[in-house]
């Protein structure tokens, strides 16, 4: 399970810290790559910009995607991930504060695998992270990653 990378797309440092804390508390010790905006997330996934030359055969086991992000927002990240041959099957979990119907519809329309609303209560948040970790890192079988882009 150690080699399975988690991509956390989160612009708020508090939420980032709390998510990392919740992962740690649940003994989920996988590598976590943090992208602080949508552009950075896309650069990581496609091995461009800041992540040029990255070994793109290593793909995240799950991407935790916030919706409200600087530069490129979460829904646009999802759109581009699904539009790309290599990344189109990657599991993407929307993890956001919003529970607007519009966001949920659009998220699922664009092919999100799951939609989770971040609870304010940290105990609940920790439980949510535990369940996400158990499901996406342990139970769920990710599709094979193509060798070449």
């Amino acid at each position: 399970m150690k080699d399975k990378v988690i991509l956390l797309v989160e612009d708020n440092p508090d939420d980032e810290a709390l998510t990392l804390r919740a992962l740690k508390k649940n003994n989920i010790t996988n590598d976590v790559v943090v992208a602080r905006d949508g552009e950075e997330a896309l650069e990581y996934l496609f091995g461009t910009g800041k992540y040029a030359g990255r070994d793109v055969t290593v793909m995240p086991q799950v991407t935790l995607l916030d919706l409200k992000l600087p530069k490129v927002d979460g829904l646009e990240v999802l759109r581009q991930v699904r539009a790309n041959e290599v990344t189109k099957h990657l599991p993407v979990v929307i993890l956001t504060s919003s529970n607007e119907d519009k966001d949920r519809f659009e998220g699922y329309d664009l092919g999100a695998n799951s939609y989770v609303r971040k609870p304010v209560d940290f105990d609940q948040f920790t439980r949510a992270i535990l369940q996400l970790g158990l499901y996406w890192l342990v139970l769920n079988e990710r599709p094979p990653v193509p060798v070449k882009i």
Partner: protein
Amino acid sequence: MSFKQKLVIAFGTALVILLWIGVLTFRRTLQEDEDQKWVSHTHLVTEKLDAALADLVDAETNQRGYLITGEDSYLNPYRSAANAVYEDAHTLRKLTADNPTQQRSLDEIEPLIALKLAELDDRIKIRNMPGLGAVIPTAIDAGTRYMEHLRTLISKMRLEEQRLLSQRMEAAQVSSRNMKKVLILGNILALVFLMSAGLVIREEMDKRKRSEETLRLSEDDLEAANKELEAFCYSVSHDLRTPLRGIDGFSQALLEDYENQLDSQGKEYLQRVRMNAQRMATLIDDLLNLSRITRSEMRRETVDLSLMAESVAIDLRNQEPERRVVFAVAPGLRTEADPRLLRIVLENLLGNSWKFTSKREGAEIQVGRIQDNGRSAYFVRDNGAGFDPKYSSKLFGAFQRLHGITEFPGTGIGLATVQRIIHRHGGRVWADAELNRGATFYFTLQLSISDEEESNEGQSHFAGRRQS
């Protein structure tokens, strides 16, 4: 004056004028026929006058023929001419019955005819008596005088008739000239009114076009305002919750990581910080739900309110399985409502009843229907804490609470939500309560249609839907 009034006046006046012209024209036609009749009448009278004179002359001529020759062949034409004269006089009297002047002339003519014919007859009788030829000259003198007098009178009647005719023709010409003026003037007037009606219509069309434009603009404004509201709600749901999660999360981190450095009071304070953060999160969610109820689309369909209430009751029992509460739901309460919104109403009302009976032994919650001013009102009744009726006006305001937060939890948004949903259905919600003796909340779901009929119809709808 309104557009309609202006239009009615303009069109109405034009119509009246045109009708008036029509009536005048018709009357003028009748008048022309009448005039024509008078012309013929004059000709007839004149002819008869001429005939009378001719017949007189004829009678005289034949009489003379007889007097001179003594041949009987003159007698018959003489008699028939004399009879014709009487007939002519009789016809003339009838023809000129309406004219006193002519009648007076006839009054003179008729005795003269009688005298003249008598004189002619006398002469024939004398002729037939032998040896009386000497009387003849004087008699002839008298006959000639009668004849002259008759000629004068007949020609006077002719003149009178001609005078009448020319008088009538002149009157006809004058009325024909007046008629032309009236026709021209009337048509111009009608045209003016029709044109002004046209102007009124055009003015109104311009006005409507402008209002449509204004309406379109305000629709744009409304849409913009709605977009703004949505952006605001989005912001509230996303941005306001994020810092709360920080407050709660890091308080918890403090409690866990620095447990040894905090005394019990420090820990309690941190717990309070967390509680408040969570409470605020609930408030934000409730507020968002309330705004969503106003924004969401509403679709009425047949709903089994009884089944829905039972299902809400099951949810409540599952949340607190240790509580013993009697639910009494009247069966078969069918109505037309938005099922999603109606469920929120029941969740709030039953949830309140559940909450406010929590300190009561033998808690009981009823759901049923009563008739209120001819329409169906549904109710949720409990025997819980109730409230003082003097505060009932405050019940439905957002964030209004009648109980302390420690006594019964809640944000005070539930009944505001209920009221908003009921109002969207065109219904009414009200409450009846006594402190410590329970509360009853009533609501209607439409303005005035009887639910009994709806219910019957609803049943068939329901069955139809289940089959499909």
